[in-house]
């Protein structure tokens, strides 16, 4: 569905490339998390998926279309929806439903069809009751869900979240994560860029980035086996994982899948 083939990218005026020789394939229906510290290249990678940035070397192919082909760009952006960090800076109009309609309006879709899509998208993120609200009266988490509704109205196949939870409070973050997981269950391919390792425990695959390269890749269980590598990449594993490791070194035989408090307690209690 998404294919990075030897992608290298260097910002103008930068001394070193932001991405170096990235090879990556994401399949239909996968939920992939990309983690890394600030400046590790994770957002740069995300911006390649819908052609906001074009590789200096190599190619990015999305749904069979190359992002470097300008004629396909609009079609790619319709397939790849993208949500950004600041909930305030991605909503265009004052009223919720008009903002959700913005994308389909750009595609020149017929008004009745837009109405249907907007209603469906708002229902899908659980914001139908807010259709006629003013955007600036909503909480951060609600704004972010509206942003996602605006993307859903384009009927994309891939959802890219570029640190979309970074500015939200824990409740907003939970709301957003729940929404994304629901969409994934309904068949959406999800690419989630984040710094919060706790958010990644429910993903299919985690990709760890450092210095513009992929340094670690695998299921959450596999990735959280390598806490040393995570620390080297300036990431902090969830507290549960570091407790698990400490207990292991004390001789408790805990399994890799002890990633959440509940799983850890379940593994640990029979050993006591």
């Amino acid at each position: 569905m998404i294919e990075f083939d030897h992608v290298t990218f260097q910002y103008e005026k930068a001394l070193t490339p932001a991405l170096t020789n990235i090879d990556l394939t994401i399949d239909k229906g996968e939920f992939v998390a990309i983690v890394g510290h600030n400046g590790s290249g994770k957002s740069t990678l995300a911006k390649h998926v819908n052609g906001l940035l074009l590789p200096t070397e190599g190619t990015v192919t999305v749904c069979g279309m190359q992002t470097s082909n300008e004629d396909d760009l609009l079609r790619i952006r319709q397939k790849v929806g993208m949500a950004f960090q600041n909930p305030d800076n991605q909503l265009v109009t004052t009223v919720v439903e008009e903002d959700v309609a913005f994308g389909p309006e750009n595609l020149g879709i017929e008004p009745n069809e837009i109405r249907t899509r907007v209603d469906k998208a708002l229902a899908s993120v659980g914001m139908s009751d807010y259709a006629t609200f003013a955007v600036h009266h909503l909480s951060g988490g609600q704004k972010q869900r509206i942003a996602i509704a605006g993307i859903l109205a384009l009927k994309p196949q891939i959802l890219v979240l570029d640190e979309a939870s970074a500015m939200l409070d824990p409740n907003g973050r939970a709301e957003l994560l729940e929404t994304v997981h629901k969409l994934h269950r309904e068949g959406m391919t999800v690419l989630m860029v984040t710094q919060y390792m706790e958010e990644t425990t429910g993903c299919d695959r985690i990709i760890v980035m450092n210095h513009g390269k992929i340094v670690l890749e695998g299921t959450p269980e596999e990735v959280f086996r390598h806490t040393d590598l995570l620390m080297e990449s300036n990431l902090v594993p969830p507290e549960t994982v570091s407790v698990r490791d400490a207990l292991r070194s004390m001789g408790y035989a805990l399994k890799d899948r002890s990633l959440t408090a509940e799983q850890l307690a379940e593994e640990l209690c029979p050993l006591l």
Partner: protein
Amino acid sequence: MSIVINHLTFAYTQGGKPLDPTLKDLTFTIEEGSFLGIIGHTGSGKSTFVKHLNGLLPCEKGTVEVDGHDLSQKSERKSVRALVGMVFQYPEYQLFAETVSEDVAFGPRNMKLDEAEVKNRVINAMTMVGLDPEIFSERSPFDLSGGERRRAAIAGVLAMHPKYLVLDEPMAGLDPLGRREILSLLEKLRTESGCTIIMISHSMDDIANHATKVLVLDQGSILMYDTPQNVFSKADELQQIGLSVPSITKICVEMNRRGVPIPVTICTEDAFLNWFREGRQHA
């Protein structure tokens, strides 16, 4: 010396009419040298409360006294603003000067200190937050990285030598490394300069690891004001008002549910592992 809050009640007004009170009859004392963590749901009144600590919002009902300065007196506000430093959410958005050192000097200059002292304080504050004055003094604050900008903004507050430092979610939006830097800076300030830290945070793990006292606000009222151990042991009550508990507390709660009687006052990794090391006695 301390900050004494006595029957503080506050309501915002809209179109001349007062709305429902945001703060309801708060009475408590913040001891000098403590690390106070303030937690509460969005809209519980946390940010409104801290704006009363340096007179940004007026004390209409009740009083706030900082080291004996009564903030209901307008004339006292200026002296209190030098005592109480404020670091708001995303403080880097307040940077405005051409160079980092000019920006850091803004506060001390407003205090009418002489130029030599201002310079001294700028260098100290920048060193304190880990921005080498040699390298960063003459750089534009807008060319720094996100984490550096945040620390430059905090230096601007530290240069005023506050006795009390109030921070509203100082780690929001930073990556794990940036968060660790800020937290260790706060610990250093408290232990080395005896600065009292008052921090609003959504991260229960950070609060459990650093705070000496925790204030829980719910709809403008004090729900709890106690040690982190005692506050987080009431996990059910916190969850009822939409707050989570530290990861370690979560593990302890889950273990109790499975019949292992680990004390739920354990809320840090150290305490948790110690319980295992010391033969798993229950409370």
